[in-house]
Each structure stands twice: as C-alpha cells, then as structure tokens.
C-alpha cells in the first residue's frame, strides 16, 4: 500500500469570475469618469431588443451623445440597422459565445468616439441565462420581454430578473392577439426583485416609449452631473 502523500494546501479564496469583474470595474470607471450612462440591454432572442433600440435612438439622439455596442454570435445585421440612425456603433461578433463579457466591451469602447455625458447602449446576445452572470460595467441592466413570449419568463429565468433594474415589455401592440397575462408577469418579476421598474412599450405604435426615454434621459443626466 503506497504511503499517503503529504500535501501542502494553498488557500486562494478567489471568485472564479474575478477577471471579468476586474475588467467590468475598469469599464465602470471609464464610464464614470466621462459621465456616460451605460445600458446593458438583454432578452431572449426575438424579443424586439433591436427594434426597441432603434425606436429609442430615433428619440434620444437629438438630446445628447448616443452610441451603441452590438453583440451577436454572427452577422453585423443589428449594427447595420443601428447605423441607419447615424449613431456611432461597434458590432461585436462572438462566433459562438452566448453572452458578452467585460473584455469585449472594453475593446469596443476603444472604437467609439470619446465624448462626455450621453448614453452607451450595449445590446447583449439574445439569451436570458448567461448574460446575467457577466458584469459588463453597465449603469443599468434592462431586460426585455415581448408579449408574444410566455408570461412566466421571470419565473423560468430568475437570475436575469433579479439582477436587472428595469423590465421592458415589448410588442405591446400585439397584446389583444396573445394570452400574455401582464399582471402575472409583473407580479412574478417583482417577487424576485421588488425594486424593478416596469415599462410597457410598442416600437410600432410608439406606446410607452416616451416614459422609457424620459427614464433613460433622467438617469443619464444624473450620471453626467455626478461626474462634472
């Protein structure tokens, strides 16, 4: 019987996602120093994030600097759509990774014009699971849920809804044609996250966009004021 080997234990106590957190911290400092309000926009694929973003850009771009970082597994389709609104945009193509990480956002920031104040939208890869675990250094996490999805999305993907500050319901114009129980979705989301702000929007009719944009502008102004 072999003699049991003597072992020396080295204690590390280090968070495994520590490296992403470090870079996220650097991104957060970058935004703070410039008074930039950064929004991490997340949702399942097909919830209308890009459409919502386009409608938001149309309203916000006259009010101050706006820029977009797009994240997709493949194609620059979303960056092309955003570019039609004449705002600076960088497309990140992950080639298989199902979420954006802080280091990718840091790379993208180097390609955006340096400006003070304003808003940077980061449209994450369509996915309600993985992006929740990766801090990008954002000021606001907003999760979109379209009324054409199940109203039990918050129950099925609790981590995403717990870590968000805002839930934006999208495609609200389609509500008469679907079974989506709005109150149930809101109740379950708020059970996970009592402070969650809720917005009901339709990019097609414009419903709810004013409230959403006012909220963004107010948060952006606060952010710019703190850094001035």
């Amino acid at each position: 019987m072999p003699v049991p080997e003597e072992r020396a234990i080295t204690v590390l106590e280090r968070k495994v996602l520590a490296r992403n957190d470090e870079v996220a911290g650097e991104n957060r400092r970058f935004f703070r120093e410039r008074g930039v309000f950064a929004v991490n926009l997340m949702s399942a694929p097909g919830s209308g994030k890009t459409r919502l973003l386009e409608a938001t850009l149309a309203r916000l771009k006259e009010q101050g600097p706006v820029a977009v970082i797009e994240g997709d597994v493949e194609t620059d389709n979303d960056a092309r759509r955003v570019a039609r609104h004449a705002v600076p945009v960088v497309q990140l193509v992950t080639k298989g990774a199902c979420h954006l990480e802080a280091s990718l956002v840091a790379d993208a920031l180097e390609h955006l014009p340096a400006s003070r104040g304003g808003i940077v939208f980061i449209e994450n890869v369509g996915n309600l699971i993985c992006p929740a675990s990766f801090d990008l250094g954002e000021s606001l996490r907003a999760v979109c849920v379209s009324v054409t999805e199940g109203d039990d999305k918050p129950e099925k993907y609790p981590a995403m809804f717990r870590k968000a500050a805002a839930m934006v319901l999208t495609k609200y114009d389609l509500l008469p044609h679907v079974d989506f129980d709005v109150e149930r979705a809101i109740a379950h989301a708020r059970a996970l996250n009592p402070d969650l702000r809720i917005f009901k929007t339709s990019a097609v009719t414009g419903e709810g966009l004013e409230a959403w944009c006012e909220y963004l502008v107010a948060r952006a102004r606060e952010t710019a004021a703190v850094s001035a």
Partner: protein
Amino acid sequence: MHELGVAQNILDTVTARIARPPRVREVRVRLGPFSGVDPEALQFAFAVLARESPCPAASLAIEMLDARGDCARCGRDLALEVPGPVCPRCGATLTAVRGEDEITLVSVALGAEETKHAGT
C-alpha cells in the same frame, strides 16, 4: 452554463498562482446553489481539460454551499431553497442574501513532488 469556460478559468488561475503546477493534486471549489454551474458538468469539463493542462494530476473537489438570507423578522442565516430576496418563513424582503451565485476557487492541495502521470 459554461462549465468548460469555468473549468478553464479555474485551471488558468491555478497555473498562474502555483509555482509547480504538476504538483497540483486537488483543486477545491465552492458553488452556490443558483450559480448556474452544474457540478457534474463541471467535474467532467475539469477532468477533460486538466489532462492537457500544466496540472494533469489535478482533480476537482466541489463544495456545495447553501444560500442564506437575513430577515428582519425571522432572524439571520435562513436557508434559501429558491433564488430571490424573499424570506422562506414570512415572505418579507430579506435584508441580505449570501452565497446564492457563488463560484469560488477555495484552495489547491499540492503533492510532495511531481508524479509521472499516465498518458503524458
């Protein structure tokens, strides 16, 4: 989630912090119940990646942690069965939640000397 990515992250961290990686025998990791990481998948991914890494003799030990919360009414360190800041006893919002999505590299156990590893 990304057990392969997490396993690679663990091996990279260990390799960077240990002077003689072939001496690594056991890597201890602590997982919260709602981290999104499946322990079995992590074991599998670690075993596959360790073989070709600077730590081919390393095995993974996983400690599962309970998520715990504090409630102003019901007390401290209550065990949480589901994610969310809701007290399991009275339904009030918890004042603090701990450990729920933890993924921590706790410690590394080193053997006395480098061993010849079968297959390398």
